[in-house]
Structures are given as C-alpha cells and as structure tokens.
C-alpha cells in the first residue's frame, strides 16, 4: 500500500478501526435482536460503516471513486429501507407483531 498522503491529518487506519467497530455492532445487532425495526437499523449501520471506509480510502488514494460510490450506497440503502418498511407494514397488518422469531409459518 502507498504511504499515507502528507496532508491527511487523520491516518487511514483510524477510519478502518471506527468502521470495523461500527460494522461489527451492526452484525451483532442483526444476529441477536428480535425486533424487525432494530434489525433494519443494524443493517443501515453496517452500510454506513462501509461508507466511512469508502470515504477514508478515497482520501487516502486521492481519487473520487470512493466518494462517488458512497452516493450510490446511500441511495440503495434508502431504497432498501423503503421496501423493508413496506413489507413490515404488510406483515404487521397480517400478524400484529414485528418480532421476527414469530414468523415461522414455513419450516423443514
């Protein structure tokens, strides 16, 4: 890897540590929580950890690809959240709950 650019006040590994911590928080949230909304939040957290990574690396490599990518990621995250909430609404109408471990009609 190239050395950190001289005008980068915060070294790139700091971005990496923060982003890894955020990402793991999201992963643990998805795996342990039962409420659908909290799970959707945790997925957003994971995607924002990625955004942090991309911006940090963009600064590090001194090109704009990473920042472009962040714009697309944010749009995709918003679309995913919209669809997730729509499904949550439909499901709540049918089942009157948002606890995901109760959704077990299909097994085997």
């Amino acid at each position: 890897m190239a050395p950190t650019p001289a005008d980068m006040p915060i070294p790139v590994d700091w971005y990496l540590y923060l982003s890894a911590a955020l990402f793991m928080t999201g992963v643990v949230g998805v795996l342990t929580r039962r409420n659908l909304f909290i799970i959707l939040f945790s997925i957003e957290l994971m995607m924002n950890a990625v955004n942090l990574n991309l911006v940090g690396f963009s600064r590090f490599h001194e090109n704009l690809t990473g920042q472009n990518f962040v714009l697309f990621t944010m749009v995709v995250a918003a679309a995913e959240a919209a669809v997730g909430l729509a499904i949550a609404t439909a499901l709540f109408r049918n089942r009157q709950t948002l606890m995901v471990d109760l959704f077990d009609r299909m097994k085997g």
Partner: protein
Amino acid sequence: MPGGDVLAIVPELIILVAASAILLIEPFLKADRTAVMAVALTGLFGSIAVSLGLLGQNRVAFAGMLVLSDWAIFFKVLFAAGGALTLMMSSDYLESQRRHIGEYYALLLFAIIGMDLMAAARDLMLFYVSLELMAISSYLLAAFFRYRVRSNESSLKYLLTGSFTSAIMLYGISLVYGQAGATNYAAIENALRGQATGSGTILAVFLVAIGLAFKVSSAPFHMWVPDVYEGAPTPIAGFFSVGPKAAAFSVILAAFIVGFPGAAEQWGILFIVLSILTMLVGNLFALVQTNVKRMLAYSSIAHAGYLLAGVGAMGWSKNSYPGETVLIYLAAYTFINLGAFGVLAFLKSQVGAKFDYSLKQMAGLGRRSPWAGVLLSLFMISLTGIPGTAGFIAKFYLFGSVVWANLVWLAVIGVLLSAVSAYYYLRVVIVMFFKEPEEELSISGPMSGGMAAGLGITAFATLRSAFFPGWLWDSIVRAFGTLFS
C-alpha cells in the same frame, strides 16, 4: 463517443421502455390484462432480437463501467428468454389467484434489467447497484400476494438475509477499493498485480464471494431458499431459481477471473469447499421433503453446488474451460427448472386453493392430466441428469471439466450425489403414474395458450439441446473469449 455508449445498453433500454409503458397504461385497462402481457413480451423479445443483432461487437462504454460483448449478450438473451417464459406461465396463475396486475410484469422487467447490467458490468460500483436493482425487485415480487402471511414472511426473510449479506459484500468491496484504489475490474487486477496476495486481499475477496454465494443459494447461506420459494408466487419461485442465480454466476466468473486472478487459488479452494457443502445440504435435505415446491427449492441448492464445483475447478486450474461448462449448465438448467415450476403453477391454477404442492396430492396426476404428468416427468428426468435430456449433457460437460482440472474426487462426490438425487426426482414420477390418489382433485380446464407455449418451449429446449449442443458450445466459447479482450 456518446452514441456508442448508448448503443451498449439498447437491449436494457427496450426493456425499460416496456416496463414504464406497462405502469402507464395499466390504470386505463379494464379487467383484461392481455395488453400488459403483450407489451412485456414485445419488450423482452425486442431486447433478444437487438442483442442478437449486436453479436460480435466489443465495446467498452461509459468510461469502462460496462461492456457490450458476446459474453454480455449471452446473458442478456438467457435472462430475457427466462423472463419471457416466466411471464407466459404467470398469466393463468395470477388470474386464478385474483391478483393479476401490471406491477408484477413491471417488477419482473426491472429485475431483468438489473441482471443484464450485472452480466455487462466491468466495475464493482455498477455491479453493486444493478445487483440491488435485481434484489429489491425480487423482494417485492416475493411479497406479491401481500394479503397472505406466507408471501409476507417469504419476502421478509429474503429481504433481511439479502440485505445483510449484501452489506457484508459491500464491506468486502470497500476493502478491495482500499487495496487497489479503483473499482474497475481491469484496474483492480492492474493494481494488485504488483503486490503479493496478502491476507487483506484474501479477506476482501472472500467477503465479496460470500455476498455472491448467498445470491446463488450456496450452503451455508441457503437458509432463506426453501422458505422464500415456498411463499413466493410459483412462477416467481421458478424465476428466482434461474435468473438471479445465473446473474450472480456471471459476476463470479467475470469479476473473479478478470479482477482477482492473483488470488485464483484461494478463491478456487473457497468455492470448492462451498460446492461440497452445498451439494451435500441440497441433496440430503431434498430427500426428506414431502412438498414438491420445497423439494425443488432444495434441488436448486444442489444444482448451485454442481455449478460451484465448476467455478472452483476454474480457480484451481486457472483456466477458463471449466467456466465455459458452467455457462452450458446454466443455459440448460434455466429451461429445465422453469419448466418444472411452470407445471406446478399450472396445477395450482387448475386445482385452486386446495392444492398445496404436497407429494400426496400429485398421486394419480398422470391419468387425470396426462400432459402435465408427462411434462413434469420429463423435467424431473432431466434434472436427474439421465441421458437423452439437456440435464445429462450439462452434467456431462461440467463434471468432465472438473475431472480435467485434476479434481477427480470432487467430480466423484458430485456424481454420487446426483445418483442420490434420482431418488427424490423419480419419486415424483412414480407417485404421479403408479399411485392411487387419496382424494380426487379435479383438473377442470385445458391448458391456456401462454402456459402451453411456455411449457412447450421449455420441453423443446430440454430435448433439443440434448442432441445439438454443438452450436451452443461454440457460442459459449466465443462469449468466454470476449471476457479477456
């Protein structure tokens, strides 16, 4: 040159126009949905015709974001054909479920645009956005019967697992960008060539591989498959089992060969391990299913395992020959599996709510509806891989290439598990023809034109490609060649 750039996405633009037209004209239609169907099919067949007209071009468009090559066109034709067959088989089914509305057609077309762009993408950014276009359309299609709990649950499981793994994959992509400073496949290869393949690169590549392994329903990321297929509308389940899966394989082949050839040995081993797991899980769980739709879901996992063996062999041998056999398998499997799900959709639309796809209710089908019985038997035999059908040719080529890559033991595992699969496939045939039904389920009407055409085309393709794989093979080899130019 801007004109040339637009030319590279004309097949997608045609589908986009058709999808938008459907959304616009739908509110003005009365109960009849024939016009919507006509627009959708015109769009898809127009896209196929234009794609075939563009064969032989090799164009890099939009600053290296995507290419128009025989490789992309192979997938464009495959996806549009698969989508058209799905639509032909959907019309009656949706009518019988009283949910025949235009959004279904539009969403399916949007998913196909996403898949087309995935195959054409030469940049991780475009690949990610088109993957999500495909995935989000798929979540909505799975939830299409939104008043039914099963359809909701199916879609929710798809959405949660899908966005979770795509976030993991995105983290991998960000690490790839961190290593290489670029997201273009060729630029990544260029940047990584000088460096030794360190643990950082391998971690990044593995995270990307996990996201794609989810999309191809590889074990241990397969948990969603049976539930999603069971709850989703039947023709859509058939579409999921061939479309998004083939799209993910197109990316696995293109991105990993072009972008990460330095780590070929490592990802080769990863895919070999995933392949063994997937073949085992798919085949063993399929044995105990009593519901034919769920059985087909596990069978699609098993087939993903065979395909991954080809991908693994490609990484292991660092040669494109096993990858070419993966394409022939994908082409054959698309038609066979769509046919099998199509017969199920036909039965559901005929019998109605009482039909729950259980093996018990299939008893005596061979006598009550000989055509459905014969067609389903053909597809089951072909999925088993018995000579005389496309399934045999596909397996023969695929396992042949795995042996060629000096992975004889992997091919032996695959062939043995295919033999196991004969039990659950042929059980359906035996139940249909040799077992007395416990309750009489009446199959009232004849097959409609669309359904008959869809099943006829899939059956024809299943039988025909068994005898004439030569031209298919030639075009695949040509398509694969354009990947490296």
